[in-house]
């Protein structure tokens, strides 16, 4: 799952969870608020009454009588003032019931005693519970609407912001990681971002890629230099042996030893040449301006390799149906690529085996397949067959193991895609996509 999707889901989910919780708690909260507010309003009414009594005297209410009572019209609120027992003392707010004109009504009542003119008075201020909770439903609904709008707004803002925030990450992935082919092209433009972490990530990736490039460059240089430097000493040894060979040395076994030494030296020469070829391809020392007709190229190849085919009595069939011309390529490299593939198809084939070279056009892409019915490759070996000097365990006669490494570097250089299918005991198919 993408990071932006995850963030979206998380933000929306967490907000909805909080809203859900809030909605569940809302009735309780509203009731709590209403109750607190009622208490507060009872208290402030009490203060008002006491203030009036202090300034205007108790008769302001009692008007000479022993008690005083007053109701609002719908009996929502009432106030009562009466003389209480001298040592009666109370100051609470509680829910209780009062009978008012034959109706029993639930009230929130503030009861408070105070002394005035040496008498103990009890003040009661009441508010019906019904009136306390009168606005709860409307309040709840209103709060809910506001909440939903706020949440929606905040989710939208969050999404826009996070999208903006992680945009550099997407750019880093696109520019540095996805679809980058080795060796990495020099694309040293830093990602524009103010986020320190992304800057750091981008810088680290660039420096990492630089390090890889540098290591690769060094390896390439080393391969080129080493294989090149081998040539002169090999040359000297080889020519010395050739001259020795013409000296008709006695006994004859000495000559045979020299030939054996030449064979070994030949091997060293081939390895150096192959490495030199790989490093030349990697250093892009070949032009890409040739036009090649696969049919001609492959016929040329079969003629070149016919002696190997005859040796194992292998039947080769070239079945090209499309008269395609490959442009912007290098004839020699392409030849080498197919030569190595066919050579492998022979090497790992059996007596009287078959090799088929055919072509295909699918969705504007042209491909040539080289398939054989030889010994095939174990699935576990397939990832390594293009590695240098990798020898597959099953074959004794693998040579020096650079043939497919050359194929790979040619394919990389000419932008060809190689696909390999193989089943042990049944054969191998290399598909080259142009």
């Amino acid at each position, binding site marked *: 799952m993408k990071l932006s999707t995850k963030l979206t889901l998380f933000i929306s989910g967490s907000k909805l969870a909080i809203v859900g919780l809030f909605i569940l708690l809302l009735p309780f909260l509203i009731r709590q608020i209403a109750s607190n507010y009622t208490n507060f309003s009872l208290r402030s009414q009490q203060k008002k009454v006491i203030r009036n009594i202090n300034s205007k005297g108790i008769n302001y209410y009692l008007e000479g009588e022993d008690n005083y009572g007053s109701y609002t019209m719908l009996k929502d609120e009432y106030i009562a003032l009466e003389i209480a027992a001298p040592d009666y003392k109370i100051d609470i707010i509680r829910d209780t019931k009062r009978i008012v004109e034959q109706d029993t009504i639930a009230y929130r009542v503030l009861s408070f005693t105070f002394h005035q003119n040496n008498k103990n008075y009890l003040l009661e201020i009441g508010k019906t519970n019904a009136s306390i909770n009168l606005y709860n439903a409307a309040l709840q609904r209103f709060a809910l609407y506001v909440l939903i709008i706020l949440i929606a707004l905040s989710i939208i803002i969050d999404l826009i912001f996070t999208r903006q925030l992680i945009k550099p990450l997407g750019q880093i992935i696109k520019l540095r990681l996805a679809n980058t082919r080795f060796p990495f092209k020099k694309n040293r433009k830093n990602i524009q971002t103010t986020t320190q972490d992304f800057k750091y990530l981008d810088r680290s990736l660039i420096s990492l890629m630089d390090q890889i490039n540098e290591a690769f460059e060094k390896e390439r240089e080393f391969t080129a230099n080493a294989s090149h430097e081998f040539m*002169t000493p090999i*040359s000297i040894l080889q020519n010395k042996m050739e001259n020795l060979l*013409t000296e008709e040395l006695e006994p004859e076994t000495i000559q045979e030893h020299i*030939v054996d030494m030449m064979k070994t030296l*030949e091997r060293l020469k081939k390895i150096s*040449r192959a490495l030199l070829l790989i490093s030349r391809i990697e250093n892009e020392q070949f032009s890409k301006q040739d036009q090649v007709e696969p049919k001609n190229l492959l016929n040329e190849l079969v003629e070149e390799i016919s002696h190997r085919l005859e040796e194992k009595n292998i039947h080769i069939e070239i079945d090209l149906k499309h008269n395609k011309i490959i442009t912007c390529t290098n004839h020699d490299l392409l030849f080498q690529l197919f030569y190595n593939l066919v050579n492998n198809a022979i090497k790992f084939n059996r007596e009287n085996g078959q090799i088929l070279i055919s072509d295909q056009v699918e969705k504007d892409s042209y491909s040539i397949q080289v398939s054989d019915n030889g010994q095939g490759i174990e699935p576990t070996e397939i990832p390594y067959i293009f590695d240098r000097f990798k020898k597959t365990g099953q074959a004794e006669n693998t040579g020096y193991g650079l043939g497919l490494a050359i194929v790979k570097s040619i394919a990389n250089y000419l932008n060809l895609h190689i696909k390999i299918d193989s089943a042990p005991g049944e054969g191998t198919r290399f598909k080259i996509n142009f």
Partner: protein
Amino acid sequence: MKVLIIEDEKTLAYELEKFLRKAFFLCDLAHSFKQGAEKLELNQYDYILIDLGLPDGNGFDLLKKAKKSNPDAAYIILTARGKLEDRVAGLDMGADDYLAKPFFLPELQSRMQAIARRKFKVSEELLPLGLFNIDLQKRFVFFENEQIELSRKEFDLLSYLLLHKNRVLTRIQLSEHIWGNFADDDYDSNYIDAHIKNIRKKLNIYAPTEWLETVRGVGYRIRK
């Protein structure tokens, strides 16, 4: 025929000299740009072999210089670099051939002979070989007046052996001449033997081929 070998690697130069002397060339050695330039001023040569990587100068510059003092000589560039551009540049500057090190000595000689045929118009008519005659230019083998069909590779093999008559050529030397860089990495492969067998079979119909000898454990030789 006089040959100047300009090669800074002394051991290699001596081996080249040793080989070419046996093939009846007169050899002169130069181990640096300076020595080479001096010898080119003083003497005229038929062949000049130039190593491109000289310690005190560029082989190409020496080639340019040599072309002035020895305009008629045949030039062969020897190099360990083996870059395609070098080959093109060398041939553009008037070199007659180009050999990447390491090369086999018979290969050098056959290149020199090929240049001689081309440049000095040394055209052997028909080369006799036992009771057969060989036309190297037109690539035919004749028995009396009858033309014998050999495949391209078979003819290459036969003419290469003939060019180096009385010398044993190993299978590696032969296969590299015929298949060049594509020569295979399977050393015990017997395809050279198969080709020799075919040549013998085709020629034996007409006359014996005892001149084509197998040298056990080494290779083949044409003895004349």
